[in-house]
């Protein structure tokens, strides 16, 4: 069985962890440059804030209903995500981090999957303070279906749902609308609707050939997964990726900052190229460094930061990656493995610009196209970025950013110990 452990309204709940006054209150988190809504609490959803809504369109609603607004605080979300995975790892024999707030876990051999799900959920809530839902099914796609059920019916499921019988699978799939099936976009759903399919169950009941003719091989894989047949290599060529990652282990650990910089710059260049090949832009970037598992000095660190404007430009991605790696490299701690991950991916055509953007985007794009053309023609070694120092400003408009509670010494949570005495009637 496969379990999908997925944080509920991740960014919004990260914010609320350090703002107890907002528990049970409506919260929205905005994308880069405070562009549009990327995460919201259940209370905000209930008030009718549409996901992805541009901030200026909901400004009125926000003021009227007293909705708390936050800019994306990537450093905070990245750190809390790492903590969730750390707790999960204790209970997970094999796990694959799928995005900042979701991990797939292979739980083959675990005798009581539902009890396992409840344990994982309560441990993450207790130790990190973030609520998750767990969906369990025979394939990744079915675990996604199960997770949908767990989230939608939190009260009844306790945040954990298990599809362990054909009857339960059918019931869940009859409930789930086609466009909410993992890997089926609105366009595919529309095509299948022409064949009369409305739900996941309708799709799973279609003849294989019809699915292939309508949606191609990718759709056919989803169809197989819905029928309980795990698609090989699904995670590699999965249609709607949430993040793109390039990681490598080094044969011998790197001890010099310059060597680590060079490696990370290479990974970042590759990641940026992957982004452009898929016509995507990244809103944020993470860099991972890990020491040798078997040597004395052990560390495993990651840093995350957001771009002012989502980008796929090699120079921007490399510049950001270098800035992050310089902040985390430690003298005397050889690096055995490093990685660069781009996430918060948006289609290149749908990037939110902003008024104070200092970069000439069209010009940058045409330079990048020229470079990509040369690389296609002559191979990737023909042109390389000279790894240049900072000097560029990467400022983002973040009028509502919370503190970097867990990653910046000067941004720690401050608790006024005396305040509760002033507020509350004291008892003798």
């Amino acid at each position, binding site marked *: 069985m496969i379990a999908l452990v997925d944080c509920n309204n991740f960014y919004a709940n990260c914010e609320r962890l350090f703002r107890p006054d907002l528990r049970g209150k409506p919260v929205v988190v905005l994308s880069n440059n405070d562009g549009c809504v990327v995460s919201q609490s259940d209370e905000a959803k209930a008030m009718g804030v549409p996901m992805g809504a541009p901030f200026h369109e909901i400004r009125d609603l926000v003021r009227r209903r007293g909705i708390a607004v936050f800019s994306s605080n990537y450093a905070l979300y990245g750190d809390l995500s790492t903590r*969730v995975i750390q707790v999960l790892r204790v209970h997970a024999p094999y796990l694959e981090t799928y995005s900042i707030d979701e991990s797939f876990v292979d739980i083959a051999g675990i005798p009581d999957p539902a009890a396992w799900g409840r344990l994982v959920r309560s441990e993450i809530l207790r130790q990190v303070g973030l609520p998750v839902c767990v969906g369990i099914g025979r394939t990744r796609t079915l675990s996604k279906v199960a997770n949908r059920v767990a989230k939608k019916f939190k009260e009844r499921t306790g945040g954990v749902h298990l599809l362990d019988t054909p009857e339960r699978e059918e019931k869940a799939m009859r409930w789930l609308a086609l466009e909410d099936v993992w890997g089926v976009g609105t366009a595919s759903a529309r095509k299948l609707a022409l064949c009369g399919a409305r739900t996941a169950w309708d799709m799973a009941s279609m003849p294989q050939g019809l699915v292939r003719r309508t949606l191609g091989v990718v759709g056919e894989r989803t169809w197989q997964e819905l029928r309980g047949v795990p698609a090989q290599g699904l995670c590699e060529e999965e249609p709607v990726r949430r993040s793109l990652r390039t990681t490598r282990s080094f044969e011998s650990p790197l001890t010099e900052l310059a060597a680590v910089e060079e490696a990370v710059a290479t990974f970042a260049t590759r990641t940026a190229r992957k982004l452009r090949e898929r016509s995507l832009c990244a809103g944020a970037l993470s860099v991972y460094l890990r020491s040798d598992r078997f040597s004395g000095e052990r560390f495993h660190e990651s840093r995350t930061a957001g771009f002012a404007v989502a980008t796929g430009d090699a120079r921007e991605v490399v510049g950001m990656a270098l800035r992050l790696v310089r902040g985390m490299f430690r003298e005397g701690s050889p690096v055995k493995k490093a990685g660069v991950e781009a996430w918060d991916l948006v289609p290149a055509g749908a990037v939110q610009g902003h008024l104070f953007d200092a970069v000439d985007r069209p010009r940058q794009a045409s330079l990048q196209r020229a470079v990509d053309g040369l690389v296609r023609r002559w191979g990737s070694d023909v042109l390389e970025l000279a790894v240049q120092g900072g000097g560029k400003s990467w400022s983002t408009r973040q009028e509502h950013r919370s503190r970097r509670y867990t990653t910046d010494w000067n941004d720690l949570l401050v*608790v006024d*110990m005396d305040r509760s005495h002033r*507020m509350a009637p004291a008892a003798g």
Partner: protein
Amino acid sequence: MELALAAGGVAAGFPSPAQDHLEGTIDLNRELVQHPASTFCVRVRGESMREANLLDGDLLIVDRSLEPYQGCVAVCILDGEFTVKHFHRREGSVVLEPANPRFRPIVVAPDRDFAVWGVVSYAVHKICRRAP
């Protein structure tokens, strides 16, 4: 923060016996942070915990994975506000005890919004004004 434990000088002849014990450095993270995933740093303000040696400006290491026990120092949430107090359970209700006679204990009525956010495992107090 890392401190070298021992550094054997290079000398001709017999190696220093101290080198046998060279095991790297004291890593305060490793010593003071038992559970990295559930540990958070918090700075405190105020006088109400003075006699528990929690002073204005101190740094607390808070471990959310520790089970609260009778009398532990805990970061608590009371009506949507954080506070730090000795945590007690008396006759079915929670009492938050300050450590300063100028402040009075708070008996938490069952209808109030209360939760323990984390248990304080260590406090770091700065002594030297030249320290960072």
